[in-house]
């Protein structure tokens, strides 16, 4: 600290020194802002280049037939029907497995679990679980679901595997959504004589459902693009049939046979086409990439919308 403002005897030069000091510090301010902006642009432009390249390559192949055709030896006739139906079925199974378990586990950890070292250890491991390479989940699923439990290379196996994969995300977002509810709301509920379960069912879960849904959708948008674990459990790469229909003409009119059916999925189909030598199939792969990207964007868009709606409704 020099004699900045305190240089009373010579007011003129003191003033100049002060301004010079401010100028120098503001310069560094701008320097950092510029560096930050450059980094941001670098990342964004690279991403944009990738997306544009994908769109340019794949767009010509996007047509109605592309969605309604099975894969084929001829690139122009090949479509993604079995792939997107497979992806949809897997997503449904994943959501069905991961949501109840994840929400219940998150709620337990936040509202019931005693705050001790065991709970902390569990919390830490859930965070670690979210960071485990997805292929490890595939290997584990191959050992347990496919061989031990005999579920086969089926949609059910894929759904369970991806369900496990996204479970940590669902648990963590559930906890975060619950933690956002102020304690005063819990106390208000208990103060009129509510039980813990009533407090959770009438207040905690409804008020956090926006956050929970956002987390669930974001975790699904991650699962939809996962390739490694479903290759490991034996997804097929060439599927020219659809899973069994969930409705049937005779009693009880619903069938869960589709859960046992073999499958393929969008990323698998894309991977398969990419690994072929013929250039035309790469165009198909790019088109599939666009579809995947759009699906992810759509899911994220829905998540953002839900969050926005709930933020407007939930005021404390």
């Amino acid at each position: 600290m020099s004699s900045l403002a305190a240089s009373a005897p010579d007011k003129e030069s003191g003033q100049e020194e002060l301004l010079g000091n401010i100028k120098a510090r503001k310069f560094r301010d701008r320097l950092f802002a510029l560096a930050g902006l450059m980094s941001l642009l670098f990342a964004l432009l690279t991403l944009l280049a990738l997306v544009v390249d994908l769109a340019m390559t794949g767009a010509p192949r996007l047509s109605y037939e592309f969605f309604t055709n099975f894969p084929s030896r001829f690139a122009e006739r090949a479509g993604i029907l079995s792939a997107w139906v497979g992806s949809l079925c897997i997503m449904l199974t994943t959501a069905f497995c991961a949501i109840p378990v994840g929400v219940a586990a998150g709620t337990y950890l936040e509202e019931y679990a005693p705050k001790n070292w065991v709970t902390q250890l569990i919390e830490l491991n859930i965070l670690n679980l979210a960071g485990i390479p997805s292929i490890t989940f595939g290997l584990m699923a191959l050992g347990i679901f496919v061989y031990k439990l005999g579920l086969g290379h089926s949609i059910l196996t894929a759904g369970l595997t991806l369900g496990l994969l996204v479970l940590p995300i669902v648990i963590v977002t559930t906890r975060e959504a619950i933690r956002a509810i102020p304690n005063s709301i819990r106390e208000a509920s208990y103060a009129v004589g509510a039980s813990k379960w009533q407090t959770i069912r009438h207040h905690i879960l409804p008020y956090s459902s926006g956050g929970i849904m956002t987390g669930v959708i974001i975790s699904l948008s991650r699962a939809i693009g996962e390739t490694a674990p479903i290759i490991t459990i034996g997804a097929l790469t060439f599927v020219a049939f659809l899973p069994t229909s969930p409705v049937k003409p005779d009693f009880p009119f619903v069938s869960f046979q589709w859960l046992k059916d073999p499958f393929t999925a969008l990323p698998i189909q894309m991977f398969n086409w990419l690994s072929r030598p013929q250039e035309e199939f790469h165009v198909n792969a790019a088109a599939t990439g666009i579809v995947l990207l759009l699906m992810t964007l759509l899911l994220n868009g829905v998540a953002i919308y839900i969050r926005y709606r709930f933020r407007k409704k939930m005021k404390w």
Partner: protein
Amino acid sequence: MNTKQMPASLRAEVKNLNFFYGPKQVLKSVSLPIYENRMTALIGPSGCGKTTLLRCFNRMHDLYATANYQGEIVLHPGARNILGKEIDPMEVRMRIGMVFQKPNPFPKTIFENVAYGLKVRGVRKKSFIEERVVKSLQQAGLWNEVKDRLHSHATDMSGGQQQRLCIARALATEPEILLLDEPTSALDPISTAHIEELITELKKEITIVMVTHNLHQAARTADYTAYMYLGEVIEFGDTDQIFTTPNDTRTENYITGRFG
């Protein structure tokens, strides 16, 4: 103060209550009578334990694991110790209502807020619930403002209205005692006056224990006042007596603004 013509009967008694947060003792041998259909104010500087004492009355501390009570709060008639291990805190909270410092309505409709206490009790009869909601809103002086929008969102109301809604929510289950934890500290003077008026009216029918930071508020509204300091009740008596001729010099110093 004008309700004191009739002699008051005991509604509850705090008997030699010690309270601990983990290893820290927050209340030290507190003893205090609570009279029926009277208002008792708990005053004292920040951190003196007045809110802690209030939250013992409905076992709010049981929500947090480190709390530990020693001593009794006896509820009359029946002379039951509501701090007893065998008593379920839910029972206590069903019998003793509470209004908090900051208005904390549920992000639901006005109607749902007031009816919530009945809902958790499993009351199903619609006409009964409606009747109680109307009565509670009337008692809370909110009926005329909200009668046309019972199904609009509670959090859209002003802070003062929200606090009166919280009072209505507490009244809907007809509690034996109403606990008020600095109910006006987050409100503007007009809303405060409104609520004070309301509780002066309410104490004709219900026993009230109120914590307040505002000495004038205690003097205006309470029949009895307890002065607390460092976890102890230093002095308890008629509000008039506490504010005009306190027996303890510590009470006098606080009342006259020498500290606190």
